[in-house]
């Protein structure tokens, strides 16, 4: 639908913004998984503007016991993190991740898209199949585009589920990302080495792919 028709239709049909806000509220409350703006628009009556309603709703829940949070391109309601102590009953014991899995996850998150060889280069040891499988199974990582280098190796990127779990809006919000980048620690070579262009032909495309 083009912007024009959406506006045109909204003149006739779209419910008032307050109603749209209620609808977004109901849908987000009902869903355990984040809901995309497109999905919201599809479920709401014709002419609704879910993105605008979300903005209103987010403000309304500012400081409340539950929060309207953005997860990638989707939205979800989550309890405020300072109230986690009330939820002892709800804590689901997740499988304890091994140190290898945690490090591999962090490397994927900070270096994505990243190949298995690059992860091994950073950790200095082979990445076991089980570690990658576990992260894939948890839906915290997924396959990204193939690297356009010999052998066309697959890359790994983090998922919306990862962002949701760690309370991040986008992968750019990873803690300490800026510092790591400016320290040159997300490159494959030390900055002091006289490399003409660290982003050049070392096979690493832009740090983050478009979602």
């Amino acid at each position, binding site marked *: 639908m083009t912007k024009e028709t959406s506006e045109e239709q909204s003149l006739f049909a779209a419910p008032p913004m307050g109603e749209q806000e209620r609808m977004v509220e109901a849908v987000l*409350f*009902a*869903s*355990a*998984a984040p809901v995309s703006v497109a999905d919201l628009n599809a*479920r709401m009556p014709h002419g609704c503007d879910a993105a605008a309603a979300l903005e209103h709703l987010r403000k309304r829940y500012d400081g409340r016991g539950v*929060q309207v949070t953005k997860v990638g391109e989707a939205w*979800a*309601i*989550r*309890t*405020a*993190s300072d109230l*986690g102590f009330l*939820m002892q009953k*709800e*804590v*689901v014991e*997740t499988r304890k991740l091994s*140190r*290898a899995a*945690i*490090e591999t*996850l*962090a*490397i994927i*998150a*900070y270096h994505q898209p990243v190949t298995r060889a690059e992860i091994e280069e*950073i*950790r*200095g*040891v082979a990445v076991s199949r089980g570690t990658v499988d576990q992260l894939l199974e948890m839906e915290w990582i997924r396959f990204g585009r193939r690297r356009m280098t010999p052998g066309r190796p697959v890359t790994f990127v983090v998922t919306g589920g990862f962002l*949701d*779990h*760690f*309370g*991040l809006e986008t992968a750019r919000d*990873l*803690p*300490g990302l800026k510092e*790591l980048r400016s*320290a040159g*620690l997300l490159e494959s*070579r*030390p900055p*002091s*080495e006289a490399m003409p262009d660290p982003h050049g032909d070392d096979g690493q495309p832009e740090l983050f792919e478009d979602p």
Partner: protein
Amino acid sequence: MSDATGDLLTAISVEDRLVAEALIVDVDGFEGPLDLLLSLSRSQKVDLRTISILTLARQYLAFVNKAKELRIELAADYLVMATWLAFLKSRLLLPPDPTEEGPSGEELAAHLAFQLERLQAMRDAAARLMAQDRLGRDRFVRGIPEQVERVRRTRYTATLMDLMQGYSRLRTRDEFRPYAFDRESVFTMEQALERMRGLIGYAGQWTEIEAYLPEGWGDDAVRWRSATAATFAASLELVKEGKVELRQSDMFAPIELRRKEDRS
């Protein structure tokens, strides 16, 4: 113990030997040589950027030798790293050979320092990541999610054409019968031919073919049209048989017919 080993051991400082001994107990706890190097580097208590790779190499080699001394099996990659560090150590200690190709000892050392710093940075990042407000620990999802129900709704539709066709079908069903030509107002060529064969013998003179129309068919326009057509067609048939001649003096003038004289 051989002399060679003894020489090497004396080259290692007491401090390095203590470090190696402390680590040796934990050899299974390391995730490979890089992890071990990172642990060793902590004994230097300096920023990883200013670490002495030479010291680190010495400590690592001491560790490997100690392990050999204690007959502890080390994985191959630990030994590969030992070989590489021994090479690096010699590069760092000897004056650079201008004929030597490839990176200098300093460059190799810088890269190793970078690798260690990067691994440490990733470990710190992993720890910070795990300390985020996590779902299911600090933040919680909806406890009673509602399922989105899929409702299949069938919308029936019809067009005006459907409606009219349906009605026509109904209203004409009674009159419907198998196709049969209605002969009531039709005079066939066969009938005309039969009629004319009987009359042709008398046609010695030119006569308008209209004269051959059957009786009573000239009044009704439909019957007249049918009879005229059939009679004309029958006349042509008779011409073809060589029985009659046809003539028409002018356009739209009456068509005349007479018996063809038998020449034989």
